[in-house]
């Protein structure tokens, strides 16, 4: 019989479809895993409601649970329980290595000051960076530019 720990381990192998350097577990979008005999119930919170990767992630989780010989039941939770604060420390390091500035903590973020907030360039570490566009290639990303190393980079939006 499958255990919750085995399910978590398997889910940690599923890459985010749009930022594949981080896994679904790194992103903190798996809220809960419950195992009842052969049934595995997963509570999953989308990053953004309009995220086009939602179905891809759900299908990947279902396939992963089936490969463990169990029956998946993925519940998509549509509330405010996920925030970018749930991204794990390991997830943040992976984002940085891939050229993404991790999100600032939710509590410390005054969005109206976003233009003035300090964001460190993931390439050279300089804080001499500016917002290029609040919006980016996916709903969860903004575009910034490092005036020090002249490198554009992506900023994970704080949610």
């Amino acid at each position: 019989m499958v255990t919750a720990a085995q399910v978590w381990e398997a889910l940690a192998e599923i890459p985010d479809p749009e930022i594949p350097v981080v896994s679904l577990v790194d992103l903190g979008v798996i809220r809960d895993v419950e195992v009842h005999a052969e049934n595995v119930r997963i509570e999953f919170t989308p990053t953004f409601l309009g995220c086009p990767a939602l179905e891809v992630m759900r299908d990947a989780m279902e396939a992963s649970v089936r490969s463990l010989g169990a029956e998946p039941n993925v519940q998509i939770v549509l509330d405010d329980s996920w925030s970018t604060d749930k991204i794990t420390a390991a997830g943040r390091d992976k984002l940085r290595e891939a050229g993404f500035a991790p999100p600032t903590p939710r509590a410390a973020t005054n969005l109206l000051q976003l233009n003035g907030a300090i964001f460190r360039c993931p390439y050279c570490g300089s804080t001499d960076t500016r917002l290029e566009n609040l919006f980016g290639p996916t709903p969860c990303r903004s575009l910034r530019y490092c005036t020090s190393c002249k490198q554009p980079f992506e900023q994970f939006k704080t949610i």
Partner: protein
Amino acid sequence: MNAPALLEIADDELILGWRDSEWTGIAPSLEEDVAFSSIAQNEIGHARALYELAAREIGTTADGLAFDRDPSEYRSAPLVEQRRMDWAHTIARHYLYETADEIRLAVLKQADDADVAGLAAKMDREEQYHRLHARMWNEHLRDEPRYQDAIRELWPLALGVLAPGQRSELAGRVGLEPVEAVERERQSDELGELWEEMTMVRRSVPGATW
């Protein structure tokens, strides 16, 4: 929470998302192309989640509500139904709608229904970025006569987004005098045209899944 109230908001978000996406590929700058495309995607995501809640109550599906109703059954506000306008009007609508939506979401976040309140809180987080974008543009254009004309022209439509009791708050926030609102019941011809386009694929193969 009753389904008709959810449908009003869901229809607004779906139709506005559709209209915002009309800028994809042709906005005045690449940044705005990305911005309006991303905002459109968020709004349609919100519509989907709201339709799902309403669908549970009615006993149908989100897609069924989004695409299988007759155009006369949509409850969207005329403000969001206007087809792509010039940039001044686009920004005026964006600013007025996002300001109204913030008022509406604040009420929804206090709903007794935990599913509705939870979803509203999630939507509100995402909408902060839309508001930031809308306010930035409003600051930028506020002294332009062409923008001021657009705001004046769309103002009665913007009031129609909110329930009568919430309208004075909107007037206060945007600094305009309340006027007679264009209500949701006054459906525009433009919605009919949009419906033809929006539901074309789904109508062409009834029952197909993707």
